[in-house]
């Protein structure tokens, strides 16, 4: 009956109109995931077009400065289009093409997934439309322009809080309106089955590489892996192949916004409850009547009231630990990594860097920490400048 469960989480809580579409997608995914031709094409794209494998860089200055664990940065920010989102977008658009679809639609928060989908669509000759909260089109104006440049149509979403959750709702609505030629390229490990499983598989290349790279450089596995979590796609990608290695601590960093004791937060596991929304059972920020909370974070990519179902399960079992990082801590980490290593991380990824700054000094020098730098921070410079009281033009 119910499919795609992670413990009690997951499932397919969607309108009947979409059921055959997700069933068709599941069938196609199950077929192509083991298809040598599909995998050869995807690997070729990831290597030659995206520039994989991404580097596992030893952050020596940061290591020395913090005086604890040896810190490595997984450089997903060096991927083509500047974030891990391209891993999933290319794979899904390729799959959609194999399924005979001619049009893709996507939601986007920070704009990175929208840009990645627009890029993949341009490359593979597909029509592309992206739904983005109006608030986010302002925070991430540069990414809106990039999507248009890539030939995509961007629809500002004005409903609700005009951020990521509303963009997801609107893309779902559009999908029910036009299914036969259209695939919904969901950007995170959320939504109805098969999306959380399929997207995790497409992002798992991150942990597969980290494992091999760490073994090669250090001759052993890392002691902990840190990643930021909104829906959780870069985190599940960085965690997945380590879930079986109990010695590796997995730490997801949620966006606390102005703090988990305020209403302006997006830290789902710190403040949310079990619920059903956007196609899945998982944890959500909500009130006592099940109304979804208007969440807030400085990071448009983490500004989401839920979390992917596999993270919810890892949280329940205790296999992964989730911590909350405030705007202020993330902005400090954003500036810190720029100054210390000459790397400007996405404000999303800066949440993981912020927690690493707290954790690394408590670890021994012979221990190894990996931080997933899920994206680059060029897109955030204007917003961070504004946060610091400096008004610059993009």
């Amino acid at each position, binding site marked *: *009956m*119910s*499919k795609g469960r992670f*413990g*009690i989480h997951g*499932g*397919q*809580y*969607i*309108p*009947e*109109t*979409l*059921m*055959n*579409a997700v069933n068709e997608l599941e069938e196609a995914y199950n077929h192509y995931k083991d298809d040598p031709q599909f995998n050869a094409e995807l690997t070729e794209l990831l290597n030659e077009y995206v520039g994989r494998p991404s580097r596992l860089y030893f952050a020596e200055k940061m290591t020395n400065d913090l005086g604890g664990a040896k810190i490595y940065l997984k450089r997903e920010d060096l991927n083509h289009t500047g974030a891990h989102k391209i891993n999933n977008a290319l794979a899904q658009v390729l799959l959609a093409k194999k399924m005979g679809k001619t049009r893709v639609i996507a939601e986007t928060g920070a704009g990175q997934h929208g840009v990645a989908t627009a890029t993949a669509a341009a490359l593979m000759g597909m029509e592309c439309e992206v739904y983005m909260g109006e608030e986010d089109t302002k925070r991430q104006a540069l990414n809106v322009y990039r999507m248009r440049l890539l030939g995509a149509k961007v629809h500002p979403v004005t*409903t*609700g809080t005009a951020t990521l*959750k*509303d963009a997801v*709702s609107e893309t*779902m*609505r559009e999908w*029910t*309106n*036009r*299914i036969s030629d259209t695939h919904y390229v969901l950007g995170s490990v959320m939504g109805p089955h098969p999306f959380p499983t399929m997207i995790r598989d497409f992002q798992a290349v991150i942990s597969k590489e980290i494992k091999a790279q760490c073994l090669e450089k250090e001759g052993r596995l890392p002691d902990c892996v840190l990643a930021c979590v909104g829906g959780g796609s870069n985190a599940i990608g960085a965690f997945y192949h380590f879930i079986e290695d109990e010695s590796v601590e997995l730490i997801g960093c949620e966006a606390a916004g102005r703090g988990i004791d305020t209403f302006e937060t997006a830290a*789902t*596991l*710190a*403040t*949310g*409850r*079990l*619920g*059903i*929304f*956007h*196609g899945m*059972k998982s*944890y*959500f920020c*909500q009130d*006592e*009547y*099940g*109304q*979804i909370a208007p969440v807030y974070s400085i990071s448009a990519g983490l500004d989401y009231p839920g979390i992917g179902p596999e993270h*919810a399960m890892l*949280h*329940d079992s205790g296999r992964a630990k989730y911590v909350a990082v405030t705007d202020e801590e993330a902005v400090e980490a954003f500036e810190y990594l720029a100054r210390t290593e000459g790397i400007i991380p996405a404000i999303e990824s800066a949440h993981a860097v912020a927690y690493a700054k707290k954790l690394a000094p408590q670890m021994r020098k012979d221990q190894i920490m990996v931080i997933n730098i899920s994206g680059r921070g060029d897109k955030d410079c204007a917003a961070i400048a504004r946060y610091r009281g400096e008004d610059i033009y993009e």
Partner: protein
Amino acid sequence: MSKIREAFEGGKAFIPFITCGDPDLETTKKLVLAMAQAGADIIELGIPFSDPTAEGPVIQEANLRALSGGVTTDKIFEMVKELRESVSIPFVFMTYANVVFSYGNTRRSGSEEAGGDNAAIGGTEAFLQKAAEAGVNGLILPDVPFEEKEDFAPACKKYGIELISLVAPTSQERIATVAKEAEGFLYCVSSLGVTGVRSQITTDIGAMVSLVRQASDIPAAIGFGISTPQQAKEMARKADGVIVGSAIVKLIAQHGRDCIPYVTEYVKQMKEAIS
């Protein structure tokens, strides 16, 4: 025979939908009384949700108006209880999974018991118990397909509330599976997309209903996109009932608290058209 099925016994059923608390609960109460008198056979009462993913702009805005007016599920239970003193036709709640599943549940994800199944059943059970006490006969959850109904069906059964199933133009071979286990009536979604007024309905409704008939004797009611008496008449020829939401919600949006005579007149016209 259930109260909902009985409502289809006297000919084609007209089923209006309104969002509770739009623009306020006093108006909702008056509307329900007026619609029942004007010939409505069943009334669909929407419990507003912050993120109604199956709704078009008209009902989305009604949800927003109701919530910003301060309506809550508990206040709606109270209103229904009061209405039951004077209205006898079946009431069907239409809302989203989380409104039922998370009702009155305040346990945080960090707490020990939150991960267990009991936390989940608590919300749903409590909701259905109160809905039944208030006199509600059915429940429609557009984001709960056949495959996920086990989260809700056992508690619905326990409290005697029929869980209404939906089929859509894309359902095809699923129609038989869904219809066989359907209760109350089967909600046949006329068109792709979300709720809202449509100038034309292009789906072959006749074919859809005949698939339902082959699988079950459940009454089939058509909804999504219907606004004119002409459309209602056409749909009623092919099915057992007609559901109208956005067209009525539009009248409410237009006239606010003064909407009662306009909606009354509209319901009369629609009921006449399908009779």
